[in-house]
């Protein structure tokens, strides 16, 4: 029974999507129009940049008195204290109900106090309060839905960058689908619980993606927004709300079960940026940039041409003033993906007191 109803709603979504897509194309150029409503310019600009970096959205930011919701394909809301007048509230609820789309970030769902429609839009029962951890910390998010467009293909467990863990006391109403939870060991009387932190909601004809992640973002600390996990779900959540489908693949450096990962500029580092950051590696520091490089190699087509390009980068790296420890790591990479091209360089390093062993290690595989 449940499966059938999901299937039905998927069909509906696809139909609606097609209509919206046609409408959008006619209305505007190629991009989805997103209205971002935030308390501060800094946070608002962060959200705008995230959306625009997906290549799917053009954005407009307002920090007060939003209007003309119906002009947008999606309205992204990240406010801690809502002060809309009743007309604005009614216009927003009407917009979503009539097939609009919204993304609610952080505390937005409870920012307006006693607003009945908002509890339905956000999928939180009337009177639900927001519970927030006393400190910001890195925490593990568990994706519950492997086949929802927003969470499909993402790591089943991933670490969110330093943020408050917050949740609405219950994110469950009839139309709500909880997509992800986070483990809180102290928020509920010390017993620990998986608390809903991401949900997809149907409100009238509209779709809403609601996440409590990002709540600690402020003008002075944008870390929660720089989390690659947050960036990914915001981009996907906004696309899903606006169109019903998600076309964006998961980034290869998506945070994993044990490590956070951030994009300071809200977009993936280029190969050269990754190598530049990797070059400062010392034992004890994060290996994340070295591993980003490994992931690029691993996720590539694996052809000799592509590996040759990466090999050239490594050979240049070995000739650069990069740290000894980062060069040792690169010798390990060469050991399996290198070619004859690396042999002379490696042989030249075998007498090096610091890199000799690493060079011999690589040669043992390249010249067996």
């Amino acid at each position, binding site marked *: 029974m449940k499966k059938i109803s999901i299937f039905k709603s998927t069909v509906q979504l696809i139909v609606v999507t097609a209509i919206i897509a046609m409408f959008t194309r006619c209305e505007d150029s190629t991009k989805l129009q997103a209205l971002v409503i935030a308390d501060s310019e800094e946070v608002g600009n962060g959200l705008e940049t995230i959306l625009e970096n997906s290549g799917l959205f053009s954005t407009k930011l307002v920090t007060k008195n939003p209007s003309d919701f119906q002009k947008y394909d999606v309205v992204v809301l990240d406010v801690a204290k809502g002060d809309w007048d009743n007309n604005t509230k009614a216009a927003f609820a009407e917009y979503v109900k009539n097939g609009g789309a919204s993304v609610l970030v952080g505390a937005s769902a409870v920012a307006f106090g006693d607003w009945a429609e908002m509890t339905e839009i956000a999928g939180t029962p009337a009177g639900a309060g927001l519970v927030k951890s006393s400190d910001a910390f890195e925490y593990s998010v568990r994706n519950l839905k492997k086949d929802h467009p927003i969470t499909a293909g993402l790591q089943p*467990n991933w670490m969110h960058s330093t943020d408050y863990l917050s949740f609405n006391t219950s994110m469950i109403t009839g139309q709500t689908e909880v997509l992800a939870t986070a483990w809180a060991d102290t928020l509920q009387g010390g017993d620990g619980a998986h608390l809903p932190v991401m949900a997809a909601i149907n409100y009238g004809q509209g779709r809403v993606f609601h996440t409590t992640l990002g709540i600690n973002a402020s003008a002075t600390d944008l870390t929660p927004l720089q989390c690659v996990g947050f960036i990914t779900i915001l981009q996907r959540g906004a696309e899903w709300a606006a169109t019903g489908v998600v076309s964006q693949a998961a980034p290869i450096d998506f945070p994993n*079960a044990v490590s956070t*990962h951030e994009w300071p500029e809200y977009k993936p580092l280029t190969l050269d940026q990754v190598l530049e950051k990797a070059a400062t590696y010392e034992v004890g520091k994060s*290996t994340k940039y070295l591993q980003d490089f490994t992931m690029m190699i*691993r996720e590539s087509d694996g052809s000799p041409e592509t590996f040759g390009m990466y090999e050239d980068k490594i050979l240049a790296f070995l000739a650069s003033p990069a740290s000894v420890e980062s060069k040792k790591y690169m010798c390990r990479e060469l050991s399996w993906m290198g070619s004859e091209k690396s042999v002379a360089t490696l042989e030249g390093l075998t007498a090096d007191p610091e890199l000799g*062993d690493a060079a011999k*290690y690589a040669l043992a595989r390249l010249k067996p």
Partner: protein
Amino acid sequence: MKNNRRQFIKKAAGGALGIFAVPYIIPGSALGKNGAVAASNRIVLGGIGLGSQGTWNSRSFLEKKEVQYVAICDVDSAHRDKAVSMVNGNYKNTDCRSYADYREFLEKEKLDAVTIAVPDHWHALIATAAANKGIDIYGEKPLSRSIKESRAIVNAVEKNKVIWQTGSWQRSLENFRRGAELVINGRIGKITHVEVGLPNGRRPIGTPPVMDVPESLDWEMWLGPAPAVPYRGVSHWDWRWIMDYSGGQLTDWAGHHIDIAHWGLGYDRTGPISVEGEGVYPREGIFDVPVEYDFTCEYATGVKMRVANSSRLVHGMGTAWYGDKGWVHVDRGDVIRTSEPKILEEVIGPEEIKLYKSTDHQQNFLDCIRSRKETITPAETALRSISVGHLGEISMLTGKKLAWDPEKEVFTNNEYANRLLMRPYRGEWKLEINS
């Protein structure tokens, strides 16, 4: 060089077999398992690696009256001291000899058998050295750290005709044997796939500072063929979470639950034809083995085997075979569950496949030393079990679906992956693959 004592035991065993004509297992009682055994007829045993697992194995052998435990070897004098007092305490004498270097140990001691429990990166060098001395071996799983090292061990064991028992002791437990026997006799129909759940990865511990090597420990010898690194307090036990020494939970447990999966499938002498999967690697700290892993192998029969950290699988830990008529799930703690309760009541008929039965893993080794028959987990079987773990590891490290030739033991669609079949050895350490 084979020693005389071993020859004597072999002859005695041949005689016993001739009289009783017992296949595979000689009744322990015939050889005085529980009674006194003349010193001249005892199996002379030594131990290499006396950490937690080595101590556990040694205790089990010390309980056997047909064993004379004579010497131990470890790179840590603290381990040596504890082991010597354990052995001497058992015999109430001061005879146990102690060595720091396994080469000297193997050279000087005249052993029938040795029990080896050292970090994985040392398995191949020590096991091949012992085999080349003609010594029977109880070796810990996983067989080795890489597929070529595994092959080196099997080659040395077969060439020297030594008896090998792997520490894959689950085969000597009734629930695992029963589950595998139901599967191999078709009680859940034609097998379509298997799910093998192994422990979730150890969480990172950060990077402990470089510290003074404890006086008791020969760190250089502990590292042996592995790359030289300063000591950070990670030697005993926690070596498992660093790829230079181990593949983590995946390779630690492949020799248990994948081993059982193969048993039920009858795949003890073959391997998959393809492998594809994904690992999650820590980005912080010195541990670098995957904390999550999930890969699928396909066999020439069409059977697929998914291996993953347990939280990703329906049955969690253990081995779950799925056939077109149901499933069987086995795990530690005597777990044996089936899709239909009546499957558990099935009787295996006299004409059907009876899997090798052992109820005591150490005893099975001792019995086979005398009978010169194969143990319940011989080296080739162990190679096939751990190879699945190593293949999964390589598919995760390369990020590619790999085609594997289980006969030639090479990847046929990816030359880069073939380089990962062996871990380079440091300095003067050399392993002879074809001894």
